[in-house]
C-alpha cells in the first residue's frame, strides 16, 4: 500500500468501502442522461404540440449518430470517474489502527490513521428504511484525546465493523485516577504494574 506502510507485526483485518447501493445511487443521474436520447422521442409523443419533433430523432442519420456517440462517450467517461472515486475511498482496519483514505477529488486525497490504543468510544448509526434493510450505516470512532474523531459514512454492516474494531482495541490495565490523594494513586498504580510484571 502506497499511502501507508504496515508496521512489523501489523496486518490488515478488513478493508471496506461505501455500500454498493450508495454507489449505484450515484450512477443514477448518468443512467438517466444515457437513456435520455432514446426516451425523448417517446416523451415528445405524449405532448401533441411537440409530436412533430419526434421524427428528428432518427439515429440512422449519420450526424445524429455522431452526436449520440459523443454524448454517450462523455457520460461513460464521467461515470467511470465516479466509479474511480468510489473505489479509491476506503477504510482499512489493521490490528493496530484504523486508516481512512478519502479521495475528495482528483489530486485531492487525505489519508489519516487512528491508533486503536487511543480509541475510547465506537458508535454505530443506522437511520432510515433502506439503510436498515440493506445494512448501511455510519460508525463514529472517538479517540481518548477527543481531538480526533473518525466517521465512516455509508459502510456495509456497521455493527460488524464496530465489533471488529472493539475486538482489536488493546486492553489497558486499569489505573486509578480519581480525586484521591496523589501518593495513594501512585502507590496503587505502581503496585498494579508490579503485580502485572510479576
Amino acid at each position, binding site marked *: *500500500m*502506497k*499511502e501507508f506502510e504496515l508496521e512489523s507485526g501489523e496486518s490488515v483485518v478488513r*478493508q471496506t468501502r461505501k455500500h454498493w447501493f450508495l454507489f449505484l445511487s450515484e450512477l443514477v443521474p448518468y443512467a438517466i442522461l444515457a437513456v435520455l436520447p432514446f426516451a425523448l422521442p417517446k416523451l415528445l409523443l405524449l405532448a401533441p404540440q411537440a409530436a*412533430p*419533433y419526434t421524427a*428528428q430523432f432518427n439515429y440512422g*442519420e*449519420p*450526424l*445524429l*449518430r*455522431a*452526436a*449520440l*456517440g*459523443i454524448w*454517450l*462517450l*462523455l457520460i*461513460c*467517461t464521467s461515470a*467511470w*470517474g465516479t*466509479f*474511480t472515486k468510489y*473505489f*479509491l475511498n*476506503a477504510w482499512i482496519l489493521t490490528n493496530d489502527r484504523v486508516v481512512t*483514505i478519502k*479521495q475528495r477529488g*482528483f*489530486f485531492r*486525497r487525505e489519508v489519516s490513521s487512528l491508533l486503536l490504543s487511543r480509541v475510547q468510544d465506537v458508535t454505530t448509526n443506522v437511520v432510515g428504511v433502506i439503510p436498515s434493510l440493506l445494512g448501511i450505516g455510519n460508525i463514529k470512532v472517538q479517540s481518548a484525546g477527543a481531538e480526533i474523531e473518525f466517521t465512516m459514512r455509508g459502510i456495509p454492516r456497521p455493527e460488524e465493523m464496530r465489533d471488529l474494531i472493539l475486538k482489536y482495541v488493546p486492553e489497558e490495565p486499569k489505573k486509578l485516577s480519581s480525586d484521591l490523594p496523589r501518593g495513594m494513586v501512585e502507590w496503587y498504580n505502581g503496585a498494579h504494574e508490579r503485580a502485572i510484571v510479576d
Partner: protein
Amino acid sequence: MPSQPLKPFTPPTGIFVQLPASISAHAMMTLLFYFAVVCWVVYTLIVIYHWLTYSHASRIAFPAIIAHLAVSLALMSYALSGLL
C-alpha cells in the same frame, strides 16, 4: 407596440438548420467530436494515473481501465461512423 401583426411561431424543420450557412453541420459535428476526444484523453489519463498510483486497488485497476478503454473505443467508432 409592434406595428406589424405577430407571426405565429414555426418550429424548425431540422436540428441543424439554425446554423449559419458558412458553417456546415458536418464540420460542426467534427469539431465537437475532436473536442470530446481531447477531453476524454485528458480525463482518462488523470483517472488511469490515480488507479495506478494507489496500488492497493491494483486487483481491480487493470480490468477497470481495460473495460473503460474498450467501451470508449466502441463509442468513438460509433460516433466516427456518422462522420466518415
